[in-house]
């Protein structure tokens, strides 16, 4: 590991703005696996998932200013952007939103492999505790990219119930992580 590996995300982004390839390499080492894993979970196709991962990290390289301070944790931001881009690929459509639009409030620190794994285990533990229908609704919406009406059609539940389940699942998830 270089000195960049221990630097904060913000410091690495600053260096990337100066086209420091070592800093970009450090960001890659820090988040590429997570981004790839999210894309793969959605797409189930390694080549497509790698394309999404490369595309997103290339955007960080080309436009590091997009991840302005105040957008939240870089790792969490990348995870959401990866999911959204993978859903676009899954639906075979052009990107529906710019990375600029993704702003999140999250203090989750994912800067190390250990922290990422710990968070993954914790999230999975909370998810497994959710009522099955809530868990299923969230997974259909988040990882399979179904709209709430598509989920309702698939599960046979009313639209309002689907909405409530998804919101309730996310609320439970946040509380479970903060606990």
């Amino acid at each position, binding site marked *: 590991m270089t000195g960049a590996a221990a630097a904060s995300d913000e410091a690495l982004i600053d260096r990337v703005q100066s086209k420091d390839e070592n800093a970009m390499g450090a960001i890659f080492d820090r988040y590429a696996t997570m981004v790839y894993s999210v894309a793969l979970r959605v797409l189930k196709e390694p080549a497509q998932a*790698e394309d999404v991962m490369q595309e997103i*990290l290339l*955007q960080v390289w080309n*436009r590091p200013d997009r991840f302005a301070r105040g957008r939240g944790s870089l790792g969490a931001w990348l*995870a959401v952007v990866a999911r959204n881009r993978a859903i676009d690929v899954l639906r075979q459509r052009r990107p529906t939103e710019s990375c600029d639009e993704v702003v999140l409030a999250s203090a989750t620190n994912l800067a190390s492999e250990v922290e990422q794994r710990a968070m*993954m285990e914790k999230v999975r533990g909370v998810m497994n505790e959710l009522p099955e229908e809530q868990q299923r609704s969230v997974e259909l919406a988040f990882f399979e990219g179904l709209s709430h009406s598509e989920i309702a059609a698939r599960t046979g539940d009313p639209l309002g119930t689907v909405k409530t389940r998804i919101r309730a699942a996310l609320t439970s998830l946040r509380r479970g992580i903060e606990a």
Partner: protein
Amino acid sequence: MTNGHISQEDLTLHAMQALSQKEDAAVRSHLDQCATCRADLAFVVGDLALVALSAERTPLPAGARARFLEIISSTPANASGRALGAAIPIDRNPVRSRAIWIPWVAVAALFVIAILLDVQVQRLDARLKIETERTAQLTATTAHAQEVLDVLTAPTAQRVLLTAPKTPPAPSARAVYLAARGALILEANNLAQVAQDKTYQLWVIPADGSAPIPAGLFRPDAAGNASVVLPPLPVGVAAKAFGVTMEKASGAATPTAPILLAGAVSASGE
């Protein structure tokens, strides 16, 4: 909407791109003007990041890092990096002298694109015509084949065997010869007419290989029939065959080719 703001449920669905287009447009419109809902949305997106983190970690494909580093090494330092669908920054205070060429470039680009599209349309049109003609040909061929099949298999069809009309009967002759008496009778039919200065001549071909013996001149009647009855012949000459040639009107001492009619004596003597 709840209390003039977007519900948490709809914010969640918006963040997951799970609303209908119409619903999503309404949410976006509100978000543009409502800082409270934008803040709420940021929390929702933070929650979604947690869901994303539930994905099982999978190692990168071999060589992924090297491929990525190669890409960024080859990316120009001043690359704008504008990705598909990314927001295009708008210069609110454009410097006219610097940007005045931009519309002309855009017009030129549109012109080129229009030409390319026109060429493409023409190609597609030509191809469509070819395919249409081919389809029409196939349809006609199929219809014709079906019609043929219908005629061949129709139970009420009349079936008639046609043959070539009769050809003119071939000239022929039948000879009856009694060597012991030197007697010969020939009956010929369907003979072609001969010119005034020509005649048919009958020949006996001896079995011993000696020269053919003239056995009479004859001309056919209007119906092509003719006969030679008991011409003067030597007695006791065994015959191998008989022949008819065309000779001058006074006849000939030896036959002139071609032999028009010929018949060999069979072993049984017939």
